[in-house]
């Protein structure tokens, strides 16, 4: 049976056996003595405490809450004597034998690294993420950017592609060309960006709060500051709630206004609109199937492209054809639902077409190369899928 002493290592409590505590205290004292003339002494000591705390944390679990004296000794020998880098004597890397025994054991599992980089302090940027991507990582990047599940993003993309008669796939291609790929770890971290939640805010504010209380020597001043901080936090929370509530009220009001201006169509209206929607969706799927068949076999139902016509022209023509085909259905549906003529129908198509043309002119070579490479890529994917299917 050994006496246990609780210590504070850089803000976290750890329970050590008494002998271990003595050893750790001696180690930290000698470190402080070595660094006495170092201007960053406090910071280095804090770093060292943190590193020791990290080593201890790995050792502890729900059923093991005390760090033994031997474990403290082991951690200290892994840390090595503190050498002030500015001194000429005794500042060097230790022989490999001594260092390598400690190096691997002291490191945290790599999963901890990954999670550390997912919530960074920097601003978020939209990148394509290749890890876990299905095609080019657009959905993956978007899911990281807005912070929702990638499967949900993919389902939304597929639904959009069907609802827009294949147009959304063109949008995907455009995004694929515009959005840069996250290559370095820093870019990947930026793709996930900071989580600007209230919790994060509160944690940061608290950290700042504790930092600033350190500077107060006077108890009264500290208490006053504490009161002020709490009041500010309360105020902030109240403002946040108020904002949410007013936003919701605004939303509700808009909704009511909309429905009072636009009378809801009757049951027949809804039914026929839904039927038309279904037909449109089926046509959309058919169109997508045609495009797929064109890419895979170079022909639609045995109808090959005329010689000299590029694949991209075929795809473009097919997409335009589908859009024109479904236009009357969309117009009818729009009229039933909103009682107003369907005027902006070509808007989306037109803008997409313009984007495509712009790309065509700006990067003629890459665009053509990309589209020409689609068949081989898709073939490759299909092969892989088939292989996978065969295995399972």
């Amino acid at each position, binding site marked *: 049976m050994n006496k246990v002493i609780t210590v504070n290592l850089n803000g976290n409590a750890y329970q050590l056996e008494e002998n271990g505590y003595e050893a750790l205290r001696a180690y930290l004292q000698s470190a402080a003595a070595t660094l006495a003339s*170092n201007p960053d002494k406090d910071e280095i000591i804090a770093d060292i405490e943190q590193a020791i705390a990290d080593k201890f944390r790995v050792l502890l679990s729900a059923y093991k809450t005390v760090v033994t004296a031997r474990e403290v000794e082991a951690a200290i020998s892994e840390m*090595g004597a503190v*050498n002030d880098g500015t001194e000429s004597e005794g500042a060097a890397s230790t022989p490999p034998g001594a260092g390598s025994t400690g190096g691997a054991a002291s490191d945290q599992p790599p999963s901890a690294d990954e999670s550390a980089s997912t919530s960074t302090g920097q601003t978020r940027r939209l990148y394509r993420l290749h890890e876990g991507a299905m095609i080019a990582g657009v959905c993956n990047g978007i899911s990281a950017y807005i912070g929702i599940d990638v499967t949900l993003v993919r389902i939304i993309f597929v639904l959009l592609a069907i609802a827009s008669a294949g147009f959304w796939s063109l949008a995907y291609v455009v995004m694929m060309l515009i959005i840069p790929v996250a290559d370095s770890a820093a870019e990947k971290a930026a793709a996930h960006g900071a989580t600007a939640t209230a919790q994060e805010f509160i944690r940061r504010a608290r950290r700042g709060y504790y930092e600033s209380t350190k500077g107060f020597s006077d108890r009264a001043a500290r208490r006053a500051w504490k009161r002020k901080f709490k009041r500010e936090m309360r105020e902030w929370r109240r403002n946040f709630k108020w904002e949410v509530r007013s936003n919701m009220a605004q939303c509700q009001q808009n909704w009511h206004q909309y429905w009072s201006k636009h009378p809801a169509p009757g049951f027949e209206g809804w039914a026929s609109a839904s039927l038309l929607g279904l037909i449109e969706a089926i046509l959309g799927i058919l169109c997508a199937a045609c495009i797929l068949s064109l890419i895979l076999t170079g022909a639609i139902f045995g109808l090959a492209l005329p010689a000299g016509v590029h694949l991209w022209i075929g795809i473009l023509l097919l997409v335009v054809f589908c859009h024109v085909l479904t236009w009357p259905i969309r117009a009818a549906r729009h009229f039933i639902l909103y009682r107003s003529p369907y005027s902006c129908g070509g808007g989306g198509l037109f803008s997409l077409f313009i984007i495509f043309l712009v790309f065509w002119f700006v990067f003629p070579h890459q665009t053509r190369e990309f589209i020409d490479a689609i068949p081989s890529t898709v073939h490759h994917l299909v092969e892989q899928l088939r292989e996978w299917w065969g295995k399972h």
Partner: protein
Amino acid sequence: MSIDEKFYAIRKGLLEFLVLRIISADKVYAADILKQLSTTEFATQEGTLYPLLSKMRREGLLEYEWRESEAGPPRKYYKLTGKGRDQLRETSEYWDKINDTVKNLGRS
């Protein structure tokens, strides 16, 4: 005197160069640096690395930012400053020159 002891001073002098190289590749925190060094002849312990990192930061070669970690408290992630990159380039060139000299001298 073993080779290990003979090259003690050289390893010591090169450590900063290697740390610059490791940090230039990616944003890392201290345990990453130790891990990368641990399998080499330059295996180092925290007691040496932390003062070195703080010295390099004082000299303006590095800077760090705090990043949240889900597994524990926030960590310091280090990256090179412009000055650090310049120094790395100069040191690399110098190192290449030394290497050439070592390789070519005394050969006929």
